């Protein structure tokens, strides 16, 4: 039988000609990414296991992007960033995007593509569950814990079980009010939070082929919310244009064989889909936004690796340019590059930054911020019983701070529309 994209990438990195789902194999790692929360404990395990004077397997393949707890007075959080600096100095690691320097980026999953670290055909591991975002570039990318990361740091290798692939074919033309976020919330709602456990989620079809890289990233970003091991989209001209603009490194594009085997195949028609939310307290608790028009909301949040990319803010600004917000609204660009784009991109003579300020939103500094709660002083954190509509990825109890808060996950269009009205609002009300 033929192989899928994921099987081909894993076969190549295992040194073998072919692999089959269910097989446990050892593979070579192209890039290991870590951040301020998991970097220090991963390196602590690395030293404990390989020795106080051990060196990482390849400094060129280790990427360190502090992003989680950056703009906080929490002394332990600040200590962890300092620990990263100490490690980088000692190991002479060249790819460190340090806080307070010109290299600082922000959210790792958006920073990795910007800096050319996401390349078709490669294997990327990261100490963060949303590492699966990079599958949008036609590569194998997944999250691991500190121990596995330490093993990779010492050896450049790790074991994986070859996943079966679930294929999601989305055909047709995506309506102007619909975003990748609506598609993935629909899919997770259909298959549930464990519907893709241990498997690959591959996205294909004419709607996907027409998508920008950022929208593809939104799809792959949330495969972990369905339990997926990795998401993948075959690299094409859109992918190549993005990658070539960011790196001179080589890459290899893989496609499914004609006779590749899939666990299952799902079909969607883009025109039939509608703006979706995930209600509290689970990413699969789906509902059409129109079903929830009586739900009052008092907090809006636009940010994170899922919904803090430039196109996410462009979408929100399309609505907020004419409508002030009616609730506390927090805008957190994922990276410094996105932040700069907000200042440099104009709609009718006003920058996006100005549009958000004029609408009454508060704009924070690039980082993960309140997506995962964090220390008490985190920008935008839910500290009481707020009802929040958010472009982020997870809404289990307490995810954005307080266990008493309720989080509705939605697209940037829906979050902006809701911020402008005070109740859950389908963005089609603004697309007359």
């Amino acid at each position, binding site marked *: 039988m033929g192989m899928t994209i994921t099987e081909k990438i894993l076969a190549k990195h295992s040194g073998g000609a072919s692999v089959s789902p269910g097989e*446990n194999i050892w593979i070579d790692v192209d890039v290991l990414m870590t951040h301020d*929360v*998991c970097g*220090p*404990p991963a390196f*602590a395990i690395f030293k404990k*296991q*390989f020795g106080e004077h051990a060196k990482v397997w390849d400094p060129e393949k280790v990427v360190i992007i502090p992003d*989680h*707890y950056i703009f906080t007075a*929490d002394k*332990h*959080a600040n*200590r*962890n960033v300092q620990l990263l600096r100490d490690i980088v100095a000692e190991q002479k690691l060249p790819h460190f995007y340090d806080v307070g320097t010109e290299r600082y980026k922000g959210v790792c999953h958006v920073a990795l593509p910007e800096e050319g670290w996401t390349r078709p055909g490669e294997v990327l591991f*990261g*100490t*963060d*569950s949303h*590492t699966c975002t990079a599958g949008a570039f036609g590569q194998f990318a997944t*999250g*691991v*814990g*500190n*121990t*596995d990361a330490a*093993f990779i740091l*010492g*050896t450049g290798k790790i*074991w994986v*079980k070859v996943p079966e692939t679930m294929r999601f074919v989305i055909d047709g033309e995506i309506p102007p009010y619909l975003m990748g976020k609506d598609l993935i919330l629909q899919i997770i709602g259909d298959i549930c*939070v*464990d519907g893709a*456990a*241990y498997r690959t989620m591959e996205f294909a079809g004419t709607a996907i082929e027409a998508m920008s890289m950022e929208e593809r990233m939104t799809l792959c970003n949330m495969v*972990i919310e369905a*339990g997926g*091991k990795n998401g993948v989209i075959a690299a094409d001209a859109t992918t190549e244009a993005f990658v070539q603009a960011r790196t001179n490194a080589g890459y290899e594009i893989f496609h499914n064989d004609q006779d590749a085997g899939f666990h299952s195949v799902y079909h969607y028609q883009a025109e039939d889909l509608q703006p979706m939310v995930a209600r509290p307290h*689970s990413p699969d608790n789906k509902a059409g936004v129109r079903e929830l028009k009586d739900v009052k909301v008092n907090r809006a949040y636009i940010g994170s690796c899922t919904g803090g990319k430039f196109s996410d803010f462009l979408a929100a600004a399309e609505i907020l340019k004419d409508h002030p917000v009616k609730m506390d609204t927090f805008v957190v660009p994922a990276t410094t590059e996105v932040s700069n784009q907000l200042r440099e991109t104009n709609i009718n003579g006003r920058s996006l930054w100005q549009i958000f300020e004029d609408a009454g939103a508060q704009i924070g500094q690039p980082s993960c911020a309140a997506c*995962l*709660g*964090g*220390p*008490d002083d985190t920008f935008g954190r839910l500290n009481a019983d707020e009802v929040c509509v958010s472009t982020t990825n*997870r809404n*289990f*109890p*307490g*995810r954005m*701070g307080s*266990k008493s808060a309720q989080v509705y996950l939605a697209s940037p269009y829906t979050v902006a529309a809701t911020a402008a009205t005070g109740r859950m609002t389908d963005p089609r009300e603004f697309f007359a």
Partner: protein
Amino acid sequence: METIKQGKVFVLGDDIDTDQIIPAAHLVYSLDHPDEKRKYGEFALSGVPIDKSGLPDGNIPFVASGQSESPYAIIVAGKNFGCGSSREHAPAALQIAGVQAVVAPTYARIFYRNAVDGGFVIPVESQASLVEHFQTGDKAEINLTDYFIRNQRTGETFPVKKLGQVENIIEAGGIFAYARQAGMIGE
């Protein structure tokens, strides 16, 4: 590896995610520094809404206020235990609180892997959800030679799955010990 685990059971529902196992605000603490490490025990499962904490009745804290060790050595939970983030602090927090094994019908992939590769807790897979068959505070025995869990209050016995391909890693105590035994990395 000891093949029989005994202890008091703490019962949880479906889809217990890593933010409920150890809320993200606490991830700032070191897992090596003894005083900070205790905090992971103190805050283990503190993110579970209190009415869902310790089923069937709920309202039972997993760790008493101000303590860092739990009286419960076995967690019986519903499907997809450990979903969410990749934080290894989650299985570590359970171990620090004194948990030896979790028994659930299914696990989220990264949690399962972290539990095994880090040698923190044994993720035992039950054939079906056992949430209805245990009450928080029951005493139980897990037998990993004959693959069952017994509720010592009711006398009921339920089969659990063999550990399968990861048994060697669990047996060795984690991926590093396993790789050394297999000659993959040096002593």
